């Protein structure tokens, strides 16, 4: 291991993933990195920076420009015993691969009655807030969570990014790994020795008593900011980092809501048919007599992701989440 002596390090989220991939390449010769521009360029976000140089073109593979081909050949490589970690360059470009992901990757293990495994990680930088052009800012996680056979996770910070990637690569199931691209440059301490917990377990990142804010990926930081502002106004918000969208750790949400009796779910994806709907439906069922207010949802609107100059209006913001908190507390 390149960082043998170091127990922990302050890393940007993108760099933490890079270190995690490096670790995986070092420890398991079957791990491969595949995608467009992941080689010399190191990916458009430099997440794979330096890996081809150190592990060669046989393990860090620049692919033809064809997402279905990338996922489809990754499936074949997995059948041969490899553990491909595939990069989709941006959220909006995963759709050409959607058929391979939904009809093949998700279902092949079940189709074979468990006799073959598909240990494939699909990395997708997702979400907005970086002022990009169309198709570079979307949050399609609900379109994967609805599909049985896939696991869907999204880290919110560098430490989770490092460890959840380790766990995703070790998982024998296909994992869709949504990377919060606007947090790529946010730094945090990464401890290389202490696993922060199971891959699919939510985490209370701020304790509170009046209302629960549940989020994952890029929206966790926003929710923490909201909780800070609310605290100044005398309100105690609990913030839950869900970390995993499928499976979703409803137990942790339930525990929190039984305490706070109010829940607001925040994600960038459109509200309609989004993660918030599933959380609201299930938590309302589980906590029907606890809830003082309906579960409220803050997310994108039912419109294509807008041009960059409007994205601040489209995305959940401090004010919009606070507004939902106010509305919930008003019940």
């Amino acid at each position, binding site marked *: 291991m390149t960082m043998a002596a170091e127990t922990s390090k302050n890393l940007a989220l993108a760099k933490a993933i890079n270190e995690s991939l490096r670790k995986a390449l070092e420890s398991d010769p079957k791990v491969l990195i595949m995608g467009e521009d992941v080689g010399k360029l190191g990916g458009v976000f430099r997440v794979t920076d330096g890996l081809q140089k150190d592990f060669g073109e046989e393990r860090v593979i620049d692919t033809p420009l064809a997402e279905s081909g990338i996922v489809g050949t990754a499936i074949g490589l997995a059948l041969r015993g490899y553990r491909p970690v595939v990069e989709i360059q941006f959220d909006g470009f995963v759709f050409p691969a959607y058929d391979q992901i939904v009809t093949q990757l998700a279902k092949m293990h079940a189709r074979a*009655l468990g006799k073959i495994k598909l240990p494939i990680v699909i990395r997708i930088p997702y979400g907005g807030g970086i002022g990009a052009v169309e198709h570079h800012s979307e949050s399609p996680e609900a379109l994967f969570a609805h599909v049985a056979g896939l696991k869907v996770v999204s880290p919110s910070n560098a430490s989770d990014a490092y460890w959840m990637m380790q766990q995703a690569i070790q998982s024998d199931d296909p994992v869709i790994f949504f990377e919060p691209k606007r947090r790529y440059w946010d730094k945090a301490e990464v401890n290389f020795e202490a696993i922060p917990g199971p891959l699919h377990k939510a985490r209370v990142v701020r304790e509170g008593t009046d209302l629960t804010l549940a989020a994952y990926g890029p929206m966790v930081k926003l929710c923490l900011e909201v909780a800070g502002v609310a605290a100044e106004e005398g309100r105690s918000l609990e913030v839950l980092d869900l970390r995993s969208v499928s499976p979703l750790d409803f137990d942790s949400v339930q525990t929190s809501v039984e305490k706070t009796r109010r829940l607001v779910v925040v994600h960038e994806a459109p509200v309609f048919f989004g993660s918030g709907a599933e959380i609201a439906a299930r938590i309302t069922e589980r906590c029907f007599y606890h809830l003082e207010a309906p579960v409220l949802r803050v997310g994108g609107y039912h419109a294509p992701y807008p041009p960059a100059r409007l994205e601040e209006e489209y995305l959940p913001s401090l004010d919009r989440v606070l507004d939902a908190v106010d509305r919930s507390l008003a019940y």
Partner: protein
Amino acid sequence: MTVESTAARKPRRSAGSKTGTTRTTAQSADAPAADASATAAKRTTTKRAAAVKKPAAKPATETVTAGADPDLVQLLTPAGERVKNAAYDPYVAALTPEDLRGLYRDMVLTRRFDAEATALQRQGELGLWASLLGQEAAQIGSGRATRPDDYVFPTYREHGVAWCRDVDPTNLLGMFRGVNNGGWDPNSNNFHLYTIVIGSQTLHATGYAMGVAKDGADSAVIAYFGDGASSQGDVAESFTFASVYNAPVVFFCQNNQWAISEPTERQTRVPLYQRAQGYGFPGVRVDGNDVLAVLAVTKWALERARSGEGPTLVEAFTYRMGDHTTSDDASRYRHDDERVAWEAKDPIARLRAYLESSNHAEEGFFAELEAESESLGRRVREAVRAMPDPDPLAMFEHTYADGHALVDEERAQFAAYQASFTDVEGA
């Protein structure tokens, strides 16, 4: 430089509809004859047109036409005469009479199995069956060309290939009966699960082959697909990946002339084997009803793969003699005389003629095989009828390898829900 198309040119605004006219216009005077493949396109079309129109009574004439087609690799004429072919004879030179009888046996048993499955569907034992009738030579020839360490990616019709891979035929029936979605262990025979989403397995095969190359192994991979599948983007992408990574994969296209109700002209206006060239690897058209030719060409292609020469496209020119599946009714869209004409090229009759004329098999062999067929049919019938319905809880199994909280929760709920009936019934 201009690469001339081999397709027929036809003024767009001529009277009548454009669709489906390729067959008749392929001989139009303004078609370029820039290279051999242009002629190929024309000739093939002519042959097919002829096949449609000619009464079935004259297999001999048909034979000559087919045998004379320079673009079709053929080692046995439809009448069962051995044709010399310098390029491909070496790949069958070592075949003993016993080997030849083996190929014959494979085809006969496969056909018998297939017929039994069709019958079982009619009897309600299977929900559906996709018959390979007519494609026995394409499948046995190519299947027997593979080595045990090679890996096969089938579509949903490769029962003959499965046979060659020693997959128990009753295993194939589970998904058609509706008791599983495949379910055999692909790794025990290096024979992947049937894949229903058209074309997607060609990418799996390519990826697998990339892995073989990475491992430094000298195995090869073969991906089966149909003429219809050739239009899918996934197949094109598999050509690109295979070519760019020089993957040891053989793309084996069974052009059985139909994709459900659509003739091959709905998918391409030039012969399919030519598709490979523009991706940087060779394409060959072989007589898909000639088991020797298929065996030879596939062996050649697999050896290319093994020796690092990369992918090959083999187009086996054959015919789907039956309906698309038992749910289909081919009489709605194709003429019976087309089928009748192809009967004259039957792969089994052809090899039998050769075995007999060359004294490679005695009457006893055929009689014994008949008996073996019947017992296979019986075994299959019994096995299918004995196949139990799966336990309802099985639907929760194997969604994930490492488990998933929601699946656990739903399984438990379902079990409790089921138990509530037992309680009631028990009460």
